[in-house]
């Protein structure tokens, strides 16, 4: 089977598994909505406070729930030796990595869209004109997050207890550049409250997208090359 055909076949099987188990998207979404609910309750309806903490909680929810999704997405491959089954097939394991990233990215986007809807409702954010740019920012952010996260998950899920704690510790430093860029771009959408202006002037969306896409490309290329070696070891 050639690379693209294998890529789409693997994604299809991943989606089928998620449709049957209803595990990753549901878990991530519930966790994220819970975080936003706490933030909303914490502001007690104070519109200024909501404007200040809302965007921060929004991004925190995406980052933290992302680790939940990443851990679950890869842990599922360890069940019953499934990963060994993949390893023993005569396929390019780099393609398996890319398919896993793509499937996880879709799950994270679905969660983010649900989260955005809840955010708009809870924090009275009715700027429909900004939704496409926000989705674009979320899309490029979660792509890099999935790319780096799957590599780390492949290394940590074999650890005792599933390695989710180790994953969370490792992924955040790795994602710092992307998180900072996302906050700068987010200021352009939400206003200066996102990072209090301390990161510099808001970053235009196109500049943000190009810069983060470059980082995404580095994560994905590294992952494609390194993943087979991790699995084979």
């Amino acid at each position, binding site marked *: 089977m050639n690379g693209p055909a294998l890529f789409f076949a693997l994604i299809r099987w991943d989606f089928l598994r998620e449709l049957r188990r209803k595990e990753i998207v549901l878990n991530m979404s519930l966790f994220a909505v819970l975080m936003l609910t706490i933030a909303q309750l914490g502001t007690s309806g104070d519109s200024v406070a909501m404007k200040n903490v809302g965007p921060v909680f929004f991004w925190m929810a995406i980052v933290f729930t992302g680790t939940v999704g990443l851990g679950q997405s890869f842990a599922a491959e360890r069940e*019953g030796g499934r990963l060994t089954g993949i390893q023993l*097939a005569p396929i390019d394991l780099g393609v398996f990595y890319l398919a896993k990233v793509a499937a996880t990215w879709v799950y994270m986007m679905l969660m983010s869209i649900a989260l955005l809807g809840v955010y708009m409702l809870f924090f009275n954010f009715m700027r429909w004109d900004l939704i496409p740019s926000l989705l674009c920012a979320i899309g490029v952010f979660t792509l890099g997050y999935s790319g780096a996260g799957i590599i780390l998950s492949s290394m940590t899920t074999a650890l005792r207890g599933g390695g989710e704690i180790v994953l969370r510790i490792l992924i955040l430093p790795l994602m710092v550049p992307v998180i900072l860029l996302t906050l700068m771009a987010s200021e352009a959408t939400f206003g200066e409250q996102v990072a209090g202006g301390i990161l510099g002037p808001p970053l235009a969306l196109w500049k943000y997208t190009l810069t983060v896409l470059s980082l995404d490309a580095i994560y994905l290329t590294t992952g494609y090359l390194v993943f087979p070696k991790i699995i084979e070891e």
Partner: protein
Amino acid sequence: MSELHSKHTPATLGGSQAVCLQKISKSFGFRNVLSDVSLEVRHGTCLAVYGHNGAGKSTLARIVSTQWAPSSGSGEVLGHSIGPGNREIRAASGWVGDQSFLRTELNLEENLLFFSSLYGAVDAEHSRALLEKFGLYTRRKDPVSTYSQGMIKRANLIRSLLHHPELWILDEPFGGLDQEGQALLKECIRDYTSRGRTVLLVTHHREIGEELASASIEIQNGFIVDEVGFDGGGAA
């Protein structure tokens, strides 16, 4: 190294051998699991590998199947150098171990389609024939999570044969199978070798090995300590 073992060191690699290993060792940290194992298995034969739990027989099977790389030594399987990542060996060999690799949320038919597509060997007729042979055709639409241990073992055997492997590596395949399943598997192994294909049978049931294999080795503490049925450096 035992006398038997050193006598059996093959002079050359490849040729008519399906499996040819030279001085293979495997260690985990400071612990040697396999030490200087050399053996040859000719095409169309069944080699039984005996040994107690932890003797190193499954490690040997995993090295042959390319799951693990040897710490030292060299070898060829079906004419290709052993080692992780060798897709030629993977494409031409089938593995049955203690884990089924099956996706429990899918039904068996979907699982078989998934693995067939990974091997580029989607063949509905062949899948159906295997399902019927192993008695799972009527249960093919049921989720694998509802299967008993014996049924999972049968499903595992079907999965391993989907792509018509040249080399069938069986690591304790009889565990969990009922009398009928065991008889079926024995018949399959005989049928397999009669068609010129090779079987590596790892078992601690010596009586089953003696019934099916044309040659055998026994491993103890990582060393080959006994060989039966070898003639002039290869399995008969």
